[in-house]
């Protein structure tokens, strides 16, 4: 490890780290927000389940690099625009989470769902205030996977020149110099760990009933 090199480039690395953070976080959030209604749709209507899940699967198989290159043409953005990265990763997140949300809603016991109907809930209110809260643990687990996968996918965008931690890998590769590569890996792991923890804590706070200890 060349600590001098790291010291000299601290400012640059920090700005890449910040860029990496929001480039990975924003699509995770947007993806979740889009996947919730789509997943609910897939859950509610059997016919849409197969269609949506197949589409999501196909979407996920498109190589990320190809998507980064193709999107500017479709969106009319410049190739270096970070928006391309955000859109591409949002698509991947949606692809990953539609199924998770649909299956999470499906995991809510049918009796609870029926009981909400019997109490006089309208379908949307039942979905939002009864079924969705109960689906949080499963959705949270899926979201952790999506968030961590986004952290690693962002770095691919370095090949296009979008500044973030992926640049460290390019620099290291071009100079045949390991320090930036190791620093990049460590920082990526750190970002992933931070995201993972945030989601874990959020799920914990949102689901107090899962930790209720039996008084029986």
């Amino acid at each position: 490890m060349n600590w001098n090199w790291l010291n000299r480039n601290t400012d640059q690395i920090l700005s890449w780290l910040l860029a990496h953070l929001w480039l990975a976080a924003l699509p995770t959030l947007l993806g979740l927000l889009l996947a919730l209604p789509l997943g609910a749709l897939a859950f509610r209507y059997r016919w849409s389940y197969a269609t949506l899940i197949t589409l999501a699967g196909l979407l996920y198989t498109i190589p990320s690099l190809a998507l980064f290159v193709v999107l500017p043409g479709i969106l009319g953005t410049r190739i270096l625009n970070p928006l391309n990265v955000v859109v591409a990763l949002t698509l991947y997140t949606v692809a990953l989470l539609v199924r998770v949300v649909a299956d999470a809603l499906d995991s809510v016991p049918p009796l609870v769902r029926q009981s909400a109907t019997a109490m006089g809930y309208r379908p949307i209110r039942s979905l939002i205030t009864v079924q969705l809260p109960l689906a949080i643990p499963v959705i949270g687990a899926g979201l952790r996977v999506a968030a961590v996968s986004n952290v690693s996918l962002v770095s691919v965008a370095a090949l296009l020149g979008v500044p973030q931690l992926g640049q460290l890998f390019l620099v290291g590769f071009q100079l045949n110099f390991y320090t930036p590569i190791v620093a990049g890996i460590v920082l990526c792991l750190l970002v992933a760990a931070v995201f993972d923890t945030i989601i874990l804590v959020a799920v914990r706070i949102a689901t107090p009933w899962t930790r209720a200890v039996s008084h029986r």
Partner: protein
Amino acid sequence: MINFDDVSKIFGEGDHRTAAVEDLTIEIPTGKITVFVGPSGCGKTTSLRMINRMIEPTSGTVLIDGVDTRSIDAPKLRRGIGYVIQNAGLFPHRTVLDNIATVPVLDGQSRKAARAVAAELLERVGLPESMGSRYPAQLSGGQQQRVGVARALAADPPVMLMDEPFSAVDPVVRAQLQDEFTRLQAELGKTIVFVTHDIDEAVKIGDRIAVFAVGGRLAQYATPAEVLSHPADDFVADFVGHDRGYRALSFTVAGNLPVRDEPTLLLGSTADPSLVPPDAQPGEPYWVLVVDDARQPRGWVDARWIAGGRRPVGLGDLVLGGSLVGPQSSLRTALDAALSSPSGRGVAIDADGRVIGTVEARDVLDAIETARVAQGLLDAADQRPAADQRPVSGAPAGDAEQAAAAVPS
């Protein structure tokens, strides 16, 4: 009053067409418990769910107090009808109090006001207020079921639907819940439709019983006593079970059975050999009834065995009897009291639980015979004005109730 008017529910089409409920016409009286009972696949739950439109009929109309349920917005209709679902169906993510407050909150009440009502209801169903802040997973099955009942009562609906509410708890807790529920209903007087597959539960709880046969056919609709004593057809007779004659005795108050004097021994006193008369059958136990200071029966003791020891009679010496015959006991209880007592004599008690003597099985059998003859005369009288008065399709069946009341008591 709830009316099913020629209601059918058909699932599937063509070759896969199955009728869950077929041409059901039934009138459910206000303020009473009507039990839908039958084997699985008989359409009893489907029928129940057509009342609050969780299932829509294929044809026919369901009316509540003369109003077609289809004319009411389904969620609004449901908020006006209490529903207790199997296994309680509580919301796992809400505290007990918030579960109970569900319908008032849906109706636009403030959470605070709804919780205050919920706390009162918690007490009403026999749970401590401290339980309000727990989550359903922290409650036993029986406690969850009580919360389910409280939740259904929260908006004080005139009609309650109960879908096998006590089927998921053990028999002891179930009996307890049934008793409490019957007591609660005596105070509240709701119109209740209760679904169960357990004929004993139906007989115990129902004011009226609708027996459903597979395929959604209403086989009989009558009082429990009527169903047990006069099953409408082979299906009902078979479903009710082979000891229905014995169980039907539950509906006749034993009344003035001859009560014989019974010598008693005070718990803790010393038995002496003079207790056993010289003409007692040698070699056989000689049973003496043991009472406590309040003259309440504690059990039976073999006087020969205890007298030999010349020591005070303790609880450990007692052979316990079974049922006790009180002023309001049925013939079934009276017969069981005699049969379950080691001496063959059933202990009779007064309203305060004090021993007044014993009854013997042969006297109970005589009373059964008297009641049977009286019932037969009543039935004959009933059949004179109209031959088809047997209430199969919703005619009010006060007859059997009157008959039970008319038996000497």
